[in-house]
């Protein structure tokens, strides 16, 4: 009896990795998935915070994909290790703060460590040549294979025919002729393959699976680093950049205001860590104050909160403010005029 070989797949929750797993399963390989949580992942939580985004039931797409494919999925916390990738990328950033090439290299390297520990034979990804401008180019895909330490143990089933032969192909663990030659940004070949496999429901995140590719998110992160004079960050920092209206009236403080009920619920989980305010006399959002505000800054924050409440046209709005020690004070303010909130304050 021949030995069944084992592969680990980098599973994001999107269609491409789902197809790559299926292609390799069809070759008789035992596949398990790994999914890395960097803190910047779109999948898994906050994409469903806003009500407008809740068109589908809330789910973790990587786990959902694993269930459809009948594979185990191991979710790995790389938040701390990822800081060095984001802060010091050897190959720089893409259009925003996305260090795609260093990121892919890092993840494949983590997969190399994983297969060595677990006794697996090779690694697969759902990469398609030419699909991403940094990490999935003909000249950069071999860089990932080499610098991650994976070398010829890294197989990309969706474009393997366009790349040098890997060990699984050379050794006959899988048949190279059953791999694919997808290239470019068109999604048509993937959709056709999905149809062939009978996949009708799959995630197609428009901006990829990482907030760092998002211009608005990257601007908020840059603002945070500039205001603090330090490029370090904690998980809570990067989570909070995913939600709310961010307004920075001055270098020493920033306001985060929920835009609807879901965001207010999310922000309420941070009430013990930040000075927070809510309106009492009218319905309104929750506001967190980040930084080191002075008394006059808090008065301005209250006026801005009043502007975003249902008391925006009232002469007076009553606000309750609670500090990190749990001490609550009340204040009555006049909502600030919208034209008094300069566009440049909006991060």
């Amino acid at each position, binding site marked *: 009896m021949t030995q069944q070989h084992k592969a680990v797949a980098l599973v994001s929750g999107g269609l491409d990795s789902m197809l790559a797993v299926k292609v390799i399963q069809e070759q008789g390989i035992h596949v398990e998935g790994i999914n890395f949580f960097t803190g910047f992942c779109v999948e898994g939580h906050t994409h469903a915070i806003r009500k407008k985004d809740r068109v589908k*039931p809330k789910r*973790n797409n990587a*786990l959902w994909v694993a*269930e459809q494919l009948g594979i185990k999925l191991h979710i790995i916390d790389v938040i701390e290790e990822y800081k060095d990738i984001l802060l010091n990328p050897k190959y720089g950033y893409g259009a925003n703060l996305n260090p795609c090439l260093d990121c892919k290299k890092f993840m494949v390297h983590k997969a190399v460590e994983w297969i060595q520990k677990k006794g697996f034979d090779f690694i697969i990804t759902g990469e398609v040549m030419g699909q991403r401008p940094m990490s999935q180019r003909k000249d950069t895909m071999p860089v990932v294979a080499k610098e991650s330490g994976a070398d010829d143990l890294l197989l990309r089933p969706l474009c393997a025919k366009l790349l040098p032969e890997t060990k699984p192909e050379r050794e006959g663990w899988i048949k190279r002729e059953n791999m694919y030659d997808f290239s470019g940004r068109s999604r048509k070949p993937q959709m056709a393959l999905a149809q062939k496999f009978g996949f009708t429901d799959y995630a197609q995140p428009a901006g990829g699976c990482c907030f760092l590719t998002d211009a608005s998110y990257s601007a908020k992160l840059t603002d945070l680093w500039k205001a603090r004079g330090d490029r370090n960050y904690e998980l809570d920092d990067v989570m909070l950049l995913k939600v709310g209206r961010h307004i920075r009236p001055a270098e020493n403080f920033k306001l985060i205001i929920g835009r609807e009920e879901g965001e207010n619920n999310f922000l309420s989980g941070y009430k013990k860590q930040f000075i927070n305010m809510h309106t009492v006399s009218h319905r309104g959002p929750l506001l967190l104050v980040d930084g080191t505000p002075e008394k006059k800054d808090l008065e301005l924050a209250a006026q801005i909160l009043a502007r975003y409440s249902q008391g925006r046209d009232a002469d007076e709005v009553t606000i309750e403010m609670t500090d990190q020690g749990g001490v609550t004070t009340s204040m009555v303010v006049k909502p600030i005029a919208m034209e008094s909130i300069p566009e440049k304050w909006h991060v």
Partner: protein
Amino acid sequence: MAKHNLDARGLLCPMPVIRAQNAIADLPQGDVLEVVCTDPGAAHDIPAWCRVHGHSILEIKQKKDELVVIIEVGEANA
């Protein structure tokens, strides 16, 4: 059969899933892990993770703002 507790309160998904996964890695088949969470997403994600790994959900209890997920470790850990 031993019973274990995991406090995942204040963590947002997927962190409660990751903590549960890491806790279960060291447990033998038949042991029970009780996970207390505050992110409502855990009510979907922890059971989904358990299904793909062959662990059983014995009960999910909602207590005010907390969610308690009780898991029995499956034969993958035998």
